[in-house]
């Protein structure tokens, strides 16, 4: 290896053999008096960087190409969500929950509705439970599809898989629009059921989409799963040990990719998930590739759940007629409602003092908790890997900052 001497004639000091994390030996030559710490480069990635998925900043310290420190900087999208919840009526908070994770408004509604139903002891009609599962699993389908698209987009595929994913997402959003009236801000679940019944022909459209989805998924897998570049970029990158994942409170596909079998649909069996047959895919190594693969497999399981739900959907009312939406005043008490949202455990913690507004409204946002381990995942990797790691964590800043 030839030594580069940028300042010929000067005595070389402070340089020497360095150990790179990859095990490669390289030699560094420096000006006199320059210490290791002076060589560290600070880079602010974001808040307007395209690969940060919104307004999110990573203060990265780089030693050459390698990350020695990474500090996530949050709060650019802070909207005082929890305080708003304490000043708005229970019903009035429902549309705000759409705006947490704006990709998955229906699962947000669902988690909030579960928390309030627990608080007030409301029963949900069977048909509404099925509709909730259908909408929730559709949300999971397109969330994971888009996540794969965004991940690949971050790694430099210039949008091709993302556009394919968005094409599928459009079909689901069209279905949501004809059911709830809005494509993204659905505001559909109500305490004790759903707002309105399915429109005519909606279920046929869903079964058509569900029947066609595996074909799209096969195509996507053909494009990506065996792809040499994808494997080179993701395998062994950002390994998350099961111990760290559990102690940091990571949930969702990131946790399962590390091999921890924890899915609230199986653990809590909230709603009527105990009636459905599905498996929980688990990863082995906990790297970015496993996180990608777990999501692909979860989409396949979701298709199975959707088929069973469409087959078994019963008739009947979609909302408990005794459930009051306006002037809703639950008894004094507290409740924590949680569901397995596409990004992890989404929980709403409510304390009621018997009035029209909760006296405490707390959101346990999966993206936020999953983001806390970002530095541990990125240390020793290159900046380009950090982008892939961040992409696989699956964050939506509306939920992180609240």
């Amino acid at each position, binding site marked *: 290896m030839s030594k580069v001497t940028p300042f010929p004639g000067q005595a070389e000091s402070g340089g020497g053999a360095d150990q790179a994390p990859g095990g490669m030996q390289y030699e560094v030559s420096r000006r006199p008096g320059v210490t290791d710490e002076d060589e560290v480069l600070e880079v602010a990635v974001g808040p307007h960087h395209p690969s940060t998925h919104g307004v999110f900043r990573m203060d990265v310290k780089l030693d050459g190409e390698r990350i020695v420190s990474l500090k996530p900087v949050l709060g650019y999208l802070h909207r005082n969500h929890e305080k708003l919840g304490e000043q708005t009526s229970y019903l009035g908070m429902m*549309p705000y929950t759409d705006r947490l994770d704006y990709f998955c408004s229906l699962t947000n509604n669902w988690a909030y509705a579960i928390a309030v139903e627990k608080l007030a002891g409301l029963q949900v009609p069977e048909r509404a439970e099925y509709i909730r599962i259908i909408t929730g699993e559709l949300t999971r389908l397109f969330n994971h599809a888009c996540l794969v698209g965004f991940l690949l987009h971050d790694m430099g595929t210039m949008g*091709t898989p993302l556009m394919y994913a968005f*094409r599928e997402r459009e079909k689901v959003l069209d279905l949501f629009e004809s059911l709830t*009236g809005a494509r993204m801000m659905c*505001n559909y679940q109500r305490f004790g059921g759903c707002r309105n019944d399915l429109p005519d022909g909606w279920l046929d459209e869903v079964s058509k989409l569900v029947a066609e989805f595996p074909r799209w998924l096969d*195509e996507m897998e053909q494009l990506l799963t065996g792809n040499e570049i994808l494997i080179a970029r993701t395998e062994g990158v950002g390994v998350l040990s099961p111990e760290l994942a559990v102690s940091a409170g990571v949930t969702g596909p990131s946790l399962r990719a590390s091999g921890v079998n924890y899915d609230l649909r199986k653990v809590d069996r909230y709603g009527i998930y105990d009636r459905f047959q599905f498996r929980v895919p688990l990863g082995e190594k906990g790297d970015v590739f496993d996180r990608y693969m777990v999501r692909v497999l979860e989409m396949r399981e979701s298709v199975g759940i959707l088929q069973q739900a469409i087959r078994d959907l019963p008739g009947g009312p979609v909302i408990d007629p005794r459930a009051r939406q*306006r002037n809703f005043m639950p008894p004094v008490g507290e409740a924590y409602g949680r569901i397995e949202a596409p990004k992890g455990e989404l929980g709403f913690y409510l304390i009621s003092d018997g009035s029209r507004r909760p006296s405490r409204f707390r959101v346990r946002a999966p993206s936020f908790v999953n983001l806390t381990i970002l530095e541990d995942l990125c240390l020793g990797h290159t900046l380009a890997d950090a982008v892939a790691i961040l992409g696989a964590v699956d964050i939506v800043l509306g939920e992180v900052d609240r």
Partner: protein
Amino acid sequence: MVVTARNFVGSYYDPDRLPTIEYPEKRQKLPENSRSFPMLIFDGEDPEAGLRCVACKICEKECPPQCIYIVAERDSRGRAVRHPKIFDLDISVCMACQICVEVCPFDSIKMDTAFEMAGRDRFGAMLLHKSELAKSDAYFHSIHPSEAVGSDARVEHIKKPAGRSQAAPAEATRKAA
């Protein structure tokens, strides 16, 4: 590569692979449940006299971002009349959540589907007044046919006793409040 080529070639003949349309030359039909911003329904010909709104202010109270402002009309003796003098709705604040529609006991506020609302004024033009919000029942029937049938039946139900005395809507207001 095979997949990309299949999608590229397929986009020329397979509508499944080319889902975009050339807006604004071509337009998609909106689903019936689709919603954009609220509007006020009036019966008959006159948008002022036929207004269903009774200025009960329930929607003003329930609106989560508080974008509705209502002042009730007063008669010569200063008593509130069941008619809004001012009904303003700031669509730069409105988040189209439809809660005003759900809580309205008189079926008077409904969701519009118009979405092409670009304008040059950022402030004044975003504040819609009663005259801009008022839409005829026939228009409501044209955009939300099945919902409109149900609401017409309810409105008839409210109106009938109202012909004899003013008690029924007042009772409905009390019940709703």
